[in-house]
C-alpha cells in the first residue's frame, strides 16, 4: 500500500466496492418491509413508547417487579422502585424469568403422555371425564408456594371435587426458621432481617445476599451497615466453603461442616452471660439450655482456635447493634431446628430482636410449605388413595430426594394432569399436559412481610391461547358445583377479593387502579418490637446435643444463586453468567482445596467419581483457595434431564438428599460423608477466572515500580486496578494514596494530577489531550461511580445488561474460547494475609465495564473511526461503521470490548425480548458498554420536551437500576452538585489504572475500606 495510498483512501475504496456489490444485487423489493397497523387501537399505547407494569411473580420471592412492555411485548423485568424491600433492585435470577416467558421450553399445545398433541377441546373433554369419574373421591393438587386468591380458587376446586387437598412444595424454603420462631417467641413468622442499622453481623452460613430470605433487602442492608461513612459494621461469616455472601465478610471462619450449631450454642452461652437484653428468668433459661457448652467445646467442633473465638465473643460484646444470621439450611441437616433456636436466642441476647430481627413486620409462616406436606401426599399416593393429581408449575421429579421415588409414585395415581408453562421432568410424567399462562401473563396476590400485599397483574396477552390455570379451575369448579364462583374470570374474582380485603375506604375501582399502579399495598413500618422468650421453650434442647461429625471427606451442598431449585437452568443468561466465586459457567463442578486435592491425588479438570451413600456421579474438579480442607462443595440446580442437550448438563445435587424429614421440616441434607476417586479422564471446566492470573489483589500487574515519590506521600505499592484502604486511613481523610487522586487535585479539575510517567508517555501537552479539557464537554459529561464497599458480586448488573443491550448467549464452547459477550464482568480478587500465624482470606468484587476513557487507547487505533469520544464524555461505538479489525480490543487496557464472532442467535422466541432501542450487532462487529446511550437519549428527549436539562438521578443505567445493594451511581459530572460528581471527589475515590496510563476513565471507583491495616492502595 505504497504509491501514496493512504489508509483511509484504501478503506474508502473497500467500502465503495462493497456498496457496488450491494447495488448490483437487484431491485429494492428484497429489502421490502411491511407494517400491520392495529385494527383497533389500544388505549394509551403508542408504538415504541414503553409502558411499565407493576407486578409480582413467584420466583421474585418478596420483591416487587416493574415489567417494561413495548408494543405489547414484555422486554425487561426491573425491580419496582416503590417497593420498600427491593427499591428497584432485583436479583439476577428474577430478571431471567423473562427468558422462561419466551424460552423454547414453553408448553404450546395440550398433549398426552406419549407426546401426541391434542386440541384444546379434546384436552378439556378428557380432563372433564377423568374428573367426573373421580368426583367425590380424591382429587388432589400439587403446586408451588401459593397464597391469596389463587389458593382460594385451588382450595374450592379441590373441595368441590371431593376428599383431596392442596399440597404446596418448595425445594428450598425457610421452614426451620419458621418453626424455631414459633418455639422461641411463639411467632409463626419469618422475621425481617434489618441489617442496615447493625454494627456487627455474625453469619453462620446463610447465603442471605444470594438465595436466602429477602435477598435484595438484606444485600442493601448489609451494604448500608458496612458503608465506611457510617459506623462501618464488621461482618464475620462462619462457613466451611466461602460463599459469595461470605466473601463480603471481614473475617471468614472456615469452620468444620456441621459445626454451625455448636458454634452458635457456645457463642450464645458466652454472650447471654453478659447480656443486658435478657431478663433474669431468660438468662437463667438460656444458661440452663447451654450450660454444657463453652468456647473450648466449640473450638473442638469447629476447628477454630479458642483465641479467635474469644476475640469474636469480645467483639460481639463491644458491639451495640449486633445481629446474627443463621446457617444455610442445606448445610444444617438434622441440626436445623436447634441451630435456628440458638441463633434466635443469640439475637435476643444481642438485643437484635425488634430493631434488626423484626417480627412485627415478619412474614406469616403459612406462606412457607414444609416438606412434610409433600411427604404426606406421597404417602397418600403410594397407598393408592389419589385418583386425580393436578400439578401446577412445580418440579418435584427433579428436586425431590431420589429415595422418594417420585416417578414410580406417580404411576400409582389414577390420572395426572400438569397445568404447565414450561416443560420439565415432572410434566414428562403427566398423563395430560395443558399449557397455562406464564406468571407474567397471570393475575394473583400474595401476602408478604409486615402488612404488605403484593398484587400480580398480567403484563401482556397470553401466548399460545393458554389461559391462566386459575381460570381453568374456576370454570371446572362451576361445572361440577354450579354457582361456586359468581365472577366470570379469575381477574374479576381477584379484584373482588382484593377490594374486600384491602379497600377500607370503599373507593372501589379507584383503589383497584391505584393498587395495580403501585404493585399492591406496599407499606412497611420502620422497626419492630422486642419479644420475650417463650416460657415453654424446651430446656433440654441442647442437652445431649453433639455436632454431626463426619470424619471422612465431607460434601457440602449449597443453593445456587443462579439456578436456585433448578427452574432457571434452562435460561441462557443464568448458564452464561459466571458463578461469583469460581467464575464457572455452563456446568457443575466439585470445589476442593488444593491441599485436599493433592491428598486425593486429583488435579483441576480431573473427572472424579463422587460417591455419596448409594449414589455415585462423575464430576470435574475445581481447585479453590476458598474452601476448608477436607470439604468438597457443589451447587444445586443443574443436572436436568428434560431441558434439551444445551441445558442438560451438570449434576443434580438434590439427589444426594434423603427423604427422612428433619425436625426443621425439610428433607435431610447436611454434611455428607463422601469419597472421591479419579476416573483417569478429564472434563474441562469453563471458568471466566483464570486461577493465579490476575485474580490476586496483591499481585502486581506489571513488574514496574509505580509512582514517583511526592514529598510527604508514601509510594504506591502495587497495581491500582482494584484498590482498598484501611478504615483508619479513611477516617483520616484519605491518607495513603500516593498517586495524588482527587483529593490532591485542584477542586476545579475533573482529573487527577498524574505523577506516573513510565507506562505511556505523558500526553498532557499533546493536542488531542488539550482539546479534551473540561471545555471539551458540552452540557453533559456522563460519569459513573461504583462503590466497591457495596458490591457483593451478585451478577444482577450483568444480567440487566444482557437484557437491556440484546447480548447474545454464546454457549459453553465459545465461552471457553473467551468469546462471551457480557459487557460487564465482575472481577473477583482474592488476597491472603498472614496475621498472627494464621492466613486471613480477603475477597473482593469489582464490576468492570467500558470505562469510557477520556483518553481512550481504543479510539486512536480504530482505522474506521467507529469508536470516538463524544462531547458528552462517552466512548462511542458506531456498530455499522465497525469493520472488525479488533485493534481496539487489543489496545483496550480494561479488556472490556467484545467481538461478534458469529451472528447472534436467539433460540425459541427469545428475540421477542430484544430491546428495540438497541441494535443487535452482527458478525464481525466490535461491541461494548455504552453507558446505556439509548437511555441517555430517552432522558434527553424527555428533558427537551419539557425544555430543561436532564435532572440528576433521572438518567439511570440498566446495571445501576438492577443493583440490589445500590453500588452504582450515574449522572452528569459537569453538574458539581450531582451525586456522581460528589462521589468522584470522595477521599476514597480513584479511577482504575488512571494514575499509570492516563486513560482518564469516566468511572470512579470508591475504594473498599477494610478493617485491616493491610490495604492495597
Amino acid at each position: 500500500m505504497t504509491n501514496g495510498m493512504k489508509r483511509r483512501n484504501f478503506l474508502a475504496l473497500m467500502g465503495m466496492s462493497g456498496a457496488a456489490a450491494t447495488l448490483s444485487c437487484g431491485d429494492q423489493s428484497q429489502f421490502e418491509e411491511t407494517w400491520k397497523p392495529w385494527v383497533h387501537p389500544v388505549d394509551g399505547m403508542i408504538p415504541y413508547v414503553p409502558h411499565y407494569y407493576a407486578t409480582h411473580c413467584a420466583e421474585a420471592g418478596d420483591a416487587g417487579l416493574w415489567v417494561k412492555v413495548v408494543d405489547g411485548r414484555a422486554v425487561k423485568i426491573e425491580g419496582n422502585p416503590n417497593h420498600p424491600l427491593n427499591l428497584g433492585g432485583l436479583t439476577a435470577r428474577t430478571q431471567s424469568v423473562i427468558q422462561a416467558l419466551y424460552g423454547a421450553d414453553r408448553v404450546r399445545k395440550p398433549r398426552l403422555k406419549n407426546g401426541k398433541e391434542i386440541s384444546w377441546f379434546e384436552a378439556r373433554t378428557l380432563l372433564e371425564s377423568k374428573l367426573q369419574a373421580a368426583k367425590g373421591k380424591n382429587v388432589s393438587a400439587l403446586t408451588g408456594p401459593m397464597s391469596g386468591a389463587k389458593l382460594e380458587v385451588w382450595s374450592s376446586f379441590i373441595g368441590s371435587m371431593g376428599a383431596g387437598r392442596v399440597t404446596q412444595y418448595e425445594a428450598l424454603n425457610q421452614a426451620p426458621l419458621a418453626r424455631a420462631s414459633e418455639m422461641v417467641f411463639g411467632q409463626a413468622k419469618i422475621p425481617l432481617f434489618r441489617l442496615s442499622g447493625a454494627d456487627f453481623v455474625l453469619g453462620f452460613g446463610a447465603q442471605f445476599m444470594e438465595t436466602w430470605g429477602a435477598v435484595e433487602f438484606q444485600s442493601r442492608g448489609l451494604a448500608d451497615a458496612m458503608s465506611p461513612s457510617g459506623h462501618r459494621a464488621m461482618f464475620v461469616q462462619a462457613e466451611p466453603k466461602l460463599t459469595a455472601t461470605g466473601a463480603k465478610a471481614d473475617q471468614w471462619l472456615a469452620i468444620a461442616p456441621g459445626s454451625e450449631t455448636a458454634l452458635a450454642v457456645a457463642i450464645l452461652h458466652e454472650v447471654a452471660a453478659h447480656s443486658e437484653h435478657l431478663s433474669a428468668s431468660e438468662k437463667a433459661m438460656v444458661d440452663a439450655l447451654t450450660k454444657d457448652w463453652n468456647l473450648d467445646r466449640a473450638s473442638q467442633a469447629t476447628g477454630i482456635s479458642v483465641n479467635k473465638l474469644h476475640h469474636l465473643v469480645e467483639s460481639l460484646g463491644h458491639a451495640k447493634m449486633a445481629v446474627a444470621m443463621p446457617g444455610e439450611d442445606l448445610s444444617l441437616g438434622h441440626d436445623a431446628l436447634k441451630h435456628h433456636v440458638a441463633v434466635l436466642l443469640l439475637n435476643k441476647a444481642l438485643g437484635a430482636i425488634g430493631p434488626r430481627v423484626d417480627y412485627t413486620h415478619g412474614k406469616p409462616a403459612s406462606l412457607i410449605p414444609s416438606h412434610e406436606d409433600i411427604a404426606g401426599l406421597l404417602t397418600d399416593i403410594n397407598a393408592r388413595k389419589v385418583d386425580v393429581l393436578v400439578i401446577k408449575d412445580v418440579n418435584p421429579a427433579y428436586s425431590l430426594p431420589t429415595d422418594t421415588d417420585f416417578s414410580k409414585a406417580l404411576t400409582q395415581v389414577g390420572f395426572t394432569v400438569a397445568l404447565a408453562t414450561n416443560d420439565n421432568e415432572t410434566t414428562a410424567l403427566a398423563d395430560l399436559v395443558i399449557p397455562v399462562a406464564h406468571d407474567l401473563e397471570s393475575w394473583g396476590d400474595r401476602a408478604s412481610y409486615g402488612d404488605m400485599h403484593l398484587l400480580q397483574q398480567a403484563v401482556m396477552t397470553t401466548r399460545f391461547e393458554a389461559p391462566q390455570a386459575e381460570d381453568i379451575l374456576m370454570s371446572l369448579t362451576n361445572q361440577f358445583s354450579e354457582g361456586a364462583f359468581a365472577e366470570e374470570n379469575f381477574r374479576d374474582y381477584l379484584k373482588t377479593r382484593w377490594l374486600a380485603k384491602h379497600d377500607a375506604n370503599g373507593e372501589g375501582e379507584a383503589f383497584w387502579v391505584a393498587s395495580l399502579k403501585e404493585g399492591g399495598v406496599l407499606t412497611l413500618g420502620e422497626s419492630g418490637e422486642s419479644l420475650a422468650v417463650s416460657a415453654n421453650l424446651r430446656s433440654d434442647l441442647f442437652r445431649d446435643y453433639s455436632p454431626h461429625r463426619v470424619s471422612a471427606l465431607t460434601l457440602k451442598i449449597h443453593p445456587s444463586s443462579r439456578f436456585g431449585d433448578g427452574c432457571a437452568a434452562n435460561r441462557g443468561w443464568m448458564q452464561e453468567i459466571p458463578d461469583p466465586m469460581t467464575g464457572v459457567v455452563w456446568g457443575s463442578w466439585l470445589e476442593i482445596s488444593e491441599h485436599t486435592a493433592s491428598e486425593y491425588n486429583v488435579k483441576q479438570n480431573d473427572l472424579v467419581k463422587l460417591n455419596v451413600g448409594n449414589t455415585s456421579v462423575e464430576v470435574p474438579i475445581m481447585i479453590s483457595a476458598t474452601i476448608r480442607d477436607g470439604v468438597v462443595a457443589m451447587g444445586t440446580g443443574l443436572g436436568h434431564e428434560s431441558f434439551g442437550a444445551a441445558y442438560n448438563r451438570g449434576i443434580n445435587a438434590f439427589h444426594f438428599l434423603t427423604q427422612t424429614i428433619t425436625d426443621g421440616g425439610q428433607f435431610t441434607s447436611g454434611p455428607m460423608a463422601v469419597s472421591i476417586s479419579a476416573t483417569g479422564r478429564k472434563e474441562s471446566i469453563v471458568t471466566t477466572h483464570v486461577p493465579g492470573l490476575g485474580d490476586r489483589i496483591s499481585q502486581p500487574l506489571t513488574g514496574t515500580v509505580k509512582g514517583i515519590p511526592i514529598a510527604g506521600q508514601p509510594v504506591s505499592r502495587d497495581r491500582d486496578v482494584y484498590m482498598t484502604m484501611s478504615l483508619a486511613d479513611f477516617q483520616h481523610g484519605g491518607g495513603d494514596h500516593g498517586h495524588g487522586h482527587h483529593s490532591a487535585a485542584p477542586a476545579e479539575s475533573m482529573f487527577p494530577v498524574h505523577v506516573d510517567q513510565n507506562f505511556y508517555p505523558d500526553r498532557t501537552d499533546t493536542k488531542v489531550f488539550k482539546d479534551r479539557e473540561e471545555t471539551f464537554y458540552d452540557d453533559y459529561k456522563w460519569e459513573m461511580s461504583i462503590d466497591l464497599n457495596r458490591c457483593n458480586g451478585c451478577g444482577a448488573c450483568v444480567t440487566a445488561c444482557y437484557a437491556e443491550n440484546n447480548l447474545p448467549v454464546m454457549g459453553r464452547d465459545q465461552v471457553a474460547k473467551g468469546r462471551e459477550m457480557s459487557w460487564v464482568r465482575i472481577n473477583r480478587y482474592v488476597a491472603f494475609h498472614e496475621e498472627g500465624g494464621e492466613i486471613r482470606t480477603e475477597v473482593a468484587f469489582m464490576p468492570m465495564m467500558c470505562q469510557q476513557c477520556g483518553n481512550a487507547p481504543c479510539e486512536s487505533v480504530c482505522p474506521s473511526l467507529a469508536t470516538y469520544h463524544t462531547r458528552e464524555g462517552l466512548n462511542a461505538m458506531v456498530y455499522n461503521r465497525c469493520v472488525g479489525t479488533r485493534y481496539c480490543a487489543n489496545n483496550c487496557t480494561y479488556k472490556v470490548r467484545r467481538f461478534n464472532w458469529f451472528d447472534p442467535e436467539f433460540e425459541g422466541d427469545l428475540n421477542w425480548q430484544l430491546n428495540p432501542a438497541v441494535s443487535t450487532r452482527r458478525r464481525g462487529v466490535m461491541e461494548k458498554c455504552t453507558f446505556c446511550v439509548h437511555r441517555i437519549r430517552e432522558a434527553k428527549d424527555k428533558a427537551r420536551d419539557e425544555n430543561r436539562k436532564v435532572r440528576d438521578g433521572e438518567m439511570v443505567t440498566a446495571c445501576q437500576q438492577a443493583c440490589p445493594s445500590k453500588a452504582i451511581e450515574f449522572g452528569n459530572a459537569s453538574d458539581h452538585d450531582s451525586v456522581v460528581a460528589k462521589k468522584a471527589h470522595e477521599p476514597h475515590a480513584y479511577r482504575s489504572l488512571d494514575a499509570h496510563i492516563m486513560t482518564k476513565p469516566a468511572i470512579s471507583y470508591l475504594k473498599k475500606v477494610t478493617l485491616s491495616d493491610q490495604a492495597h492502595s
Partner: protein
Amino acid sequence: MKNRKKQFGAISLLIGLGVLAISLTAFQNSASPPARRADVQFDAYQPEQPIAYSHKLHAGDLGIPCEYCHTYARRSRTAGIPAMEQCMACHQILATDRPAIQQMAAMFEKNEAIEWVKVHDLPDFVYFSHKRHVSAGFECQTCHGPIETMEVVSREAPLTMGWCVNCHREHREQGASLDCLVCHK
C-alpha cells in the same frame, strides 16, 4: 451450526480477499475513476400497496392534516400507520361503494390488518425520532416530499446518511447535533 458458520466465514473471507485483489487492481490501473457518492442513483422507490390509498385525495384534495391520521408522529419515534378503526370512522359512511373501501371493510370485519409496505424505511441500526423533528417544527414534506400530490407514495429523499448529516449541519444553531450517537444506536 457453528461449524457451518465457520465454513461460511472462511468462504466469505476468501471472497473478501478476492474483492480486495480486484479493487487493488482497479486502483492501480486507474482505468475508471471511482464513482463519487453523488453519482449513485437512488430511484424513486414506489412499492405497490395492498390497497390503493391515495394521499393526493386525502391530504391534498380533502386537506386532511397529516397528523390527523399519523397521530404518533408527535409522540413517538415512529409516525405510525393509523389503526383500521380510524379509517373506518369515516368509511363506514363515506365512499362505501368503492371496491378498495369494501375490501378494507371486509378485512376490518374479520379483524385483519392491512399489511402496508413501508416506503420510508431506515436501517435497524438507525435511531430516528419523528417526535423530535415534528416538535422542532419541520414540515412532513421536508423529508417525505410533496406527499399531498402523490397518488401512490414514492420515496423522494435518498434517506442516506449524507443527506441526514447535511440537514443536521444546516440546523446546528437550532440544536441539531452532528454526533454519531444521535442517530446510530
